[in-house]
């Protein structure tokens, strides 16, 4: 009896190995699946000899509707190119982790998104795209972020950011508040909203649990502090001679928001989606996010009246600004086995109608010149502030790779009372030196 049991177990083992040895999950594909059936490791040929389909791996860092749109376009590409299959993946919050491990093992996807780090982080892994037809049509605002002095074009910028804080237009109207263009005005507006609503409406909602909203605050106002005014510290930051004691004011302002009661109670444990919901339901007035939160908020309340404002100026006499930089991009791994297919994929996305579709899903300007994007409900704000300057996100240029997280975490510490603004600045400066030395 036991003999039979073991022969059975042995058979199961052998059977399962036979199954796995094929390594082909294609046999289990459900009819509902939109994924391309995966072939096992592709041969080293770059172009398929007639009939043999190539599979390219594509990874995007977007989630939600944006990711769905990208995937849909990828499927359209497949239909146009029957010899090429696309293995599309959008891992969400684990994207950067995965990419780092893949870089360490030299195993990158054929095509991937660079989310702002095309030059600094992914630069050495990217194929030069300067000979592509769209390379001459790069929009002037985004061009410096995706090219370098030698003329190398790192990625295709489909759209670009033009971001400032978002706000609930109805709330502002209700309490008679004008869009504040300086920090002093901003604090005054908060006071008005707080007293007017008897504390029911949070002036600013921050979803600090995810930590990146905190970093967003620092990014926004670092530009206002050190880059946009004249004179500014741009050169000092590029040299590494910046006087970090100047930076403490940002942490102090953040703490001020909390001590004055302008910030939501659960700033440390709320998430980005909570901020969207709070704005949509009229429980908060401002959020240091960007146009993307408008789309998110509309899902909760379709009647939400979302507005975008520029980043308020910090210093006397300075003008407010917008933050800009890469938004949706595609880069090609220079060691990819399927460079030609990857190039075709990227060029497909460079078509004006596709650029328009992606940019509109983000309510953002296109990255290629000559594409008209309808920004919908945000058009009036873009028009209103059309003359204001846009600066690339502070941390992508002036901070060494890896500082983003330091800003986020130290900001959280300041809000939690675990660090004073001075201590936070100390930590930030320490990490700055360490990371800079490592570059």
């Amino acid at each position: 009896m036991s003999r039979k049991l073991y022969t059975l177990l042995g058979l199961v083992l052998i059977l399962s190995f036979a199954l796995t040895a094929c390594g082909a999950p294609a046999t289990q594909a459900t009819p509902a699946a939109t994924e391309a059936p995966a072939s096992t490791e592709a041969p080293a040929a770059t172009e398929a000899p007639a009939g043999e389909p190539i599979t390219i791996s594509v990874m995007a860092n977007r989630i939600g509707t944006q990711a769905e749109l990208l995937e849909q376009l990828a499927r359209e590409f497949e239909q146009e190119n029957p010899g090429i299959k696309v293995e599309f993946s959008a891992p969400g919050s684990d994207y950067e982790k995965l990419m780092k491990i893949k870089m360490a093992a030299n195993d990158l996807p054929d095509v991937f998104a660079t989310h702002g780090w095309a030059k600094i982080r992914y630069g050495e892994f990217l194929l030069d795209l300067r000979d592509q037809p769209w390379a001459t049509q790069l929009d002037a605002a985004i061009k410096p972020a995706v090219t370098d002095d030698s003329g190398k074009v790192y990625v295709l910028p489909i759209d670009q950011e033009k971001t400032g804080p978002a706000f609930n237009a109805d709330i502002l109207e209700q309490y008679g508040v004008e869009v504040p263009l300086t920090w002093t005005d901003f604090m005054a507006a908060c006071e008005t909203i707080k007293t007017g609503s008897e504390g029911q409406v949070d002036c600013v909602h921050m979803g600090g649990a995810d930590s990146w909203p905190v970093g967003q605050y620092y990014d926004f106002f670092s530009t206002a502090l050190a880059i946009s005014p004249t004179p500014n510290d741009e050169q000092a930051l590029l040299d590494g001679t910046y006087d970090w004691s100047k930076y403490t004011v940002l942490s102090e302002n953040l703490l001020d928001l909390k001590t004055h009661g302008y910030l939501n109670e659960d700033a440390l444990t709320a998430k980005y989606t909570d901020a969207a919901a709070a704005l949509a339901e009229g429980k908060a007035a401002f959020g240091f996010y960007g146009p993307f939160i408008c789309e998110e908020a509309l899902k909760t309340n379709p009647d939400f009246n979302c507005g975008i404002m520029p980043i308020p100026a910090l210093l006397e006499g300075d003008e407010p600004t917008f933050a800009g930089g890469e938004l949706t991009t595609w880069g090609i791994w220079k060691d990819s086995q399927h460079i030609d297919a990857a190039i075709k994929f990227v060029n497909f996305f460079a078509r004006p109608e596709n650029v328009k579709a992606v940019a509109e899903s983000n309510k953002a300007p296109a990255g290629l010149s000559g594409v008209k994007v309808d920004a919908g409900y945000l058009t009036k704000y873009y028009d209103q502030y059309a003359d204001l300057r846009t600066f690339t996100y502070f941390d992508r240029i002036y901070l060494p790779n890896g500082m983003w997280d330091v800003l986020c975490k130290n900001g959280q510490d300041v809000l939690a009372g675990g660090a004073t603004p001075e201590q936070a600045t100390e930590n930030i400066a320490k990490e700055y030196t360490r990371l800079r030395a490592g570059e």
Partner: protein
Amino acid sequence: MDILRSFKNNIGKVRGNQLKKFFDSPGSLNLMYIPALFMFSVFVYYPLAQGVKFSFTNWNGYSPDYSLVGLENYRYMFTDTRSYKVILNTLIYGLGSTLFQNALGLAYAMLLNTNLKGRVIVRTIVYFPVIVAPLIMGYVFYFIFQYDGGALNDILLVLGKEPIDWLGNGPRAVWLITLVNTFQYMGVSMLIYLAGLQAIPKEYLEAAEIDGASGFYKFLHITLPLLMPAITVSIVLNIIEGLKLFDVIISLTNGGPGYASHSLSTMMSDLFFAGQNAGFAAALGNLMFAIISFFGITSLSFLRRREIDL
């Protein structure tokens, strides 16, 4: 098995006694763990050696270049104040969880070791959280601790009190995470103790009662000593798992606010991926390995010595 025998007999004609002696000796059995050994070497120890190497470099986790920095990472580790906080948290997660899990597990086991009707149902219910993926468990409790609309705050509101941001306070978050971990795994301890209690011969307890021993005396001098093997297993496993705690922390607080609720393992992950400081992360990993080994081995030998053989 007959095949084996006939094979042996035929070979025997050539090599005769030598082979037979080999298959009879205990040493030949050692061949049996070679597959396991092979797998360990390839998938664990070879990567581990490389991982240790990284702790002596300033690698950022992804680029092909890095350089050796000797003991710099370790020096930083011992001078940075955050390290101590993280080590303390780890100890709370490990030792705190173990304490609660075992105390409660034993209490539950003693309760269920009687002829209570429906005890199987209670046992099933208490054990159920164990099968939930820790990640999911974290999300479930997030719904409970949420500030806006969380289960606990709803109750507070109904009672007319102010809602509390449960996970927004560092030390409180650490203890809450410990509680969630306890909640999830105390079923394991309970089952181990239940099995252990059931293995204690009734005659011992009855004899003691006849001799006039009180309930507490029975517990201390009969039950507890005979439970030692169970206690050993439960405590050692709990300590190791508690010190390694990861998924629950990530899904509840992600180590926050700031760095306040990080354990060594979550801090490692954060440093590696977000902080781009793979060298330091590796150094922390080695520290973690040392700490867990220390606690695991000391508790094991301490408890083993007190076991009584049945």
